[in-house]
C-alpha cells in the first residue's frame, strides 16, 4: 500500500545562482510563511 517516489537532489537556487556569479541578497527564509509581509516588503 505504499507508493514510493524516488527524489533527485539538486543545488538550491541560491547555490546555483552563486555559481553563475549572481549573489542573492539575504532574505528572511520565514517570509515564505508570511506572504502578506513579503508582498509589502
Amino acid at each position: 500500500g505504499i507508493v514510493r517516489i524516488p527524489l533527485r537532489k539538486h543545488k538550491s537556487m541560491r547555490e546555483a545562482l552563486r555559481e553563475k556569479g549572481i549573489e542573492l541578497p539575504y532574505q528572511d527564509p520565514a517570509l515564505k510563511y508570511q506572504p502578506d509581509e513579503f508582498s509589502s516588503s
Partner: protein
Amino acid sequence: DYMYINNYADYWNTPQSFQVLFDTGSANLWVDSIYCSTQACNAHTKFNPQQSSTYSANGHTFYLPYGAGSLYGTFGYDTVNVGSIVINHQEIGLSTNEPGQNFVVAKFDGILGLSYPSISAGGETPVMDNMISQNLLSANIFAFYLSRGGQQGSVLSFGGMDTNLYQGQIYWTPVTSESYWQIGVHGFEINGRETGWCSQGCQSIVDTGTSALTAPSQLIGHIMQAIGAQESHYGMYMVDCSQLNNLPTLSFVISGVALPLAPSAYINQHYQNGHQFCSVGITPTYLPSRNGQPLWIFGDVFLREYYSIYDRTNNRLGFASA
C-alpha cells in the same frame, strides 16, 4: 461479423510530465505553462492545457511568493498522476508570469505543496487532501527520506512509512498549527547541556523546500559562538575545517526527546580552486512564528538526519533516525 470500437484513441492524450519540488512548506500545486514566456518559464517544460482533453479552467488567478522566487498564475483542473496515484479533478496552478532570475536556475518545472489547505493560495485543494477525499491512500500519511550523499537515494512515500529507511523508534509530536507542518520545540541543547533558550517555547516549521536549518535571529549569535564560526560575506558563517571533530552536537528537545545533530549534519564542505571551505548550514530568521514564539525551520539539514513522517489522520509528525 464483428464491430470493433476502434476510436477510443480519439479521447486519449499523451500525458504531460513535469519535475516538481515536493514542498512541505507550501500547499499549492503549480507548473510552468504556455501562458508564461518569461526567461524562467522558457527554461522549463510547459503545460499546454490545449493538449489535454481533461483540463478545465476555473478563471481564478493567484500570486505565490516563496521568498526565493515568486510567480503569478491562473487556476484550472486536470487529472494528476503522482507516482501512479491518479487524482481526478485536481486544482492546478498554471504560471502566467515568473519574474526574475530565481526560477531560471531551478531544476523543477513546478512545486507540489504538501501543507494543510488553510494556507493554500486561492483556496486551492492541495494534492494530499484530494488523495485523502478520493480514498487513494492506504493510510493518510506521507514520509520523506533525504539521502545524505549525492543526487540519488532520496524517497518520498505516500500511504505509509518505509521501515527500511529509518532505524529505531519513531518519536511523535503533535502539529501545533494545522497550517504548515509546525511543531513545538521545548528545549535546545549544546553538547547535551540545556541552554534554556526555548524554555518559554519555540516553534519549528518542518520544510522540505528549505535547504538550511534556520534559527531565530536572537539565538544565532550564541549558536555561532558555541560553534566557533565567523561571519563571512553574504551572511554565511564559516568554520576552520580542521576543527570539525571538535564542534559541538546541537540537539532539539521535542515532546521530551532530544534529537541530536552532529557537526557532520550542519557543516557543509565545499572545494574551490583546490581549497576546502567549511560553512555552517544554519541561517537566521527574523520573523517569529504566528503565536509569537521564536521560529526555527527544520529544512534539509535537519531532515537528512531524521526520517520524517507526516500523519494527517492524527495531525502529528514523526521523526526517526534516517
